[in-house]
């Protein structure tokens, strides 16, 4: 066995052809997970466009009164886009080693995430009680609540993730070198926000 070399198994190896540089394994996993989530929402949007192409009239007449870009949806958009900026700021702070700045950024993002739920709850409440528009109000209602609902569920996941990362940040667990959890949640949060922007454009603006 003279031809064998003692070696560590895979991590940080330097010989030619080995994955010594590049993305952290956990971050790569998160990116792939987000890629799969993109496909999940792509399927929902595909369903929306398929129904739009085969059903007349779509969206049903009268819905433009309450599914409008100038209602709570506009506020939701502002809140979420703003939260993307605060999240980015938090990530940039920890990349520079500023734990305090990161915690502040995360706290503001968390607050905006919670505000999102207040706005969605208000929107759903008005739609259901005032406009009599529910998940069983024809295929348009089903699509509306499934798409916004699953987006909301993903925001919930993000908010929980931010809360965990913030708690760890307050414990002083992150540094300029070691903060993959922050990077991961920041990718995910941007993804959730982009999905909302597309949702807003497709459902509320373009209809």
């Amino acid at each position, binding site marked *: 066995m003279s031809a064998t070399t003692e070696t560590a198994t895979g991590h940080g190896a330097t010989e030619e052809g080995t994955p010594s540089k590049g993305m952290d394994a956990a971050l790569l996993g998160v990116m*792939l997970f987000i890629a799969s989530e993109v496909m999940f*929402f792509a399927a929902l949007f595909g369903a929306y466009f398929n129904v739009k192409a085969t059903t007349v009239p779509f969206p049903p007449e009268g819905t433009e009164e309450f599914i409008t870009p100038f209602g709570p949806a506009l506020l939701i958009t502002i809140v979420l886009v703003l939260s993307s900026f605060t999240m980015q700021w938090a990530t940039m702070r920890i990349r520079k080693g500023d734990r305090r700045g990161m915690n502040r950024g995360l706290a503001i993002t968390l607050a905006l995430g919670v505000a999102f739920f207040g706005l969605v709850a208000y929107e759903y409440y008005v739609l259901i009680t005032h406009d009599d528009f529910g998940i069983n109000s024809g295929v348009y209602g089903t699509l509306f609540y499934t798409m916004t609902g699953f987006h909301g569920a993903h925001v919930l996941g993000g908010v929980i993730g931010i809360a965990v990362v913030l708690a760890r940040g307050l414990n002083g667990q992150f540094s300029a070198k070691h903060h993959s959890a922050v990077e991961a949640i920041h990718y995910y949060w941007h993804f959730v926000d982009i999905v909302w922007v597309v949702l807003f454009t497709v459902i509320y603006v373009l209809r």
Partner: protein
Amino acid sequence: MATTTLPQARPAYRSRVYDWLTTVDHKKIGVMYIVMSFGFFMIGGVMALFIRSELAVPGLQFVGEATYNQLFGMHAVTMIFLFVMPMTTGLANYIVPLQIGAADMAFPRINALSFWLVLSGGLMIMMAFAFGGAPVGWTMYAPLSVTEPATGVDLLILGLILAGTSSLLGAINFMVTIFRMRAPGMTLLRMPMFCWTTLVTSVLLVFSIPVVTAGLVMLFIDRNYGGGFFDPAQGGNPILWQHVFWFFGHPEVYILILPGFGIISEILPVFARKPLFGYKAFVFATASIGALGFSVWAHHMFTTGAVYLPFFSFFTFLIAVPTGIKFFNWLATMWGGQLKFDTPLLFAVGFITLFLIGGLDGAFLAVVPFDFMVQDTYWVVSHIHYVLVAGSVFSIFAALFYWFPKMSGRRLDERLGKVQFWLLFIGTNVAFFPQHMLGLDGMIRRIADYSDNAGWTSLNFLSTIGAFMIGVSVLPFLWNVFITLRKPQDAGDDPWEGYTLEWATTSPPPVHNFDKLPPVRSERPVFDLRHGDVHGAPVAAITSGEAH
């Protein structure tokens, strides 16, 4: 880590059951996957025997229509989602980290989660039988799947979502493992073919599973919350289900067969004592099958009138090109080789022979007018079984015979293996070849009964005999495993004189897999290690792709 000193003695006694239930070791998880899926293989097989018994002769003698309608869908769901997928995942779980020289998967705990998720999903799907069954077929076409009142359908939907989540997490795990944890010197183009096919399969899973998950969620909403996705009365579209289902469903067939292609490509070179012919062509053929797999889903929907036929027909034919390259390479690998007809090679050659039939009768289906004629007939049943039984099942048995010595330290009995092979080989042809003729005669699938003057009786009876031969062929295998596990571990580390890294460690491997790794200078590091002296240098430096 090889450099860490491990405690020599266990601190305290822990039961073996507790060890297995809490393990995050990829090898133990792999074995659990394999055992679980073999259990589901036998359950699904018994369902198939019920189906074939009912169809043996005209008239309803055996299970009756209601049970029959539950069985044919459940048979497919069990075999596809609870046997072939977790079985190939289990094999990959055990073998891929060894082949790339890693100590474990990238995320061992998520790996364990994947296993427990698919087991829960499987049990949930089986529970459907206790709640009215799921008589909607494995394709679950709307509107039948929406209006069917049985709660079993909801259990099927939820079970499939769990199993899908398991596959998704597993796929991400494999991709990260392959991208981040390869041994020094193992470039992507020196990776064993089984790792390549696992990688491409994982890509397919990551991009197709979420789509069917979304579809299943829509179905669940339609069934339980008054949704209207697939209900024309509410403005929905039943064809939408077929789109989301087959957008997953066609990549799915490559998910089922690509690991098999990888297994065959591992076994043929070792048993022909030659390198794999055209390694790079093989890699690119695998990748292009994966890519093309996403552009053909609507060939399942030709007769709906809702899809653009020339596009999907053309791309379906196009897939025959990379598949043909693989066949060419397999034959060229065997050509002039010193073939050693041990059981793994028998199964591999059986695979090549029979999968060719499954490939050809599938190409017929790409011809639009022909597809219109045989849509939903036994021609399709025959095709799917020639690719899944003759394809996936043969490759799985080839893999089990090939890697059993690595997993247990013991070689399975050759004589029993050959008995099993011939029973399975003949049984597969007797069971499924007559179904081509039945399909051309117009016998449609999913029927429990047929008229005795339709002229289908003798072919159906023949098919039933074949099905029972397949059923019997499992018995020598079970007996083989049973007696082999009682023998001493005498197989040695490398019983087949293999080429890839899993043969460079002990059988079974230690928890950390490798004490020492050979240098990787080609896609056959263990061959280089063994024959290094022949080339003069300790190990001849061979750049991948230039080795042959």
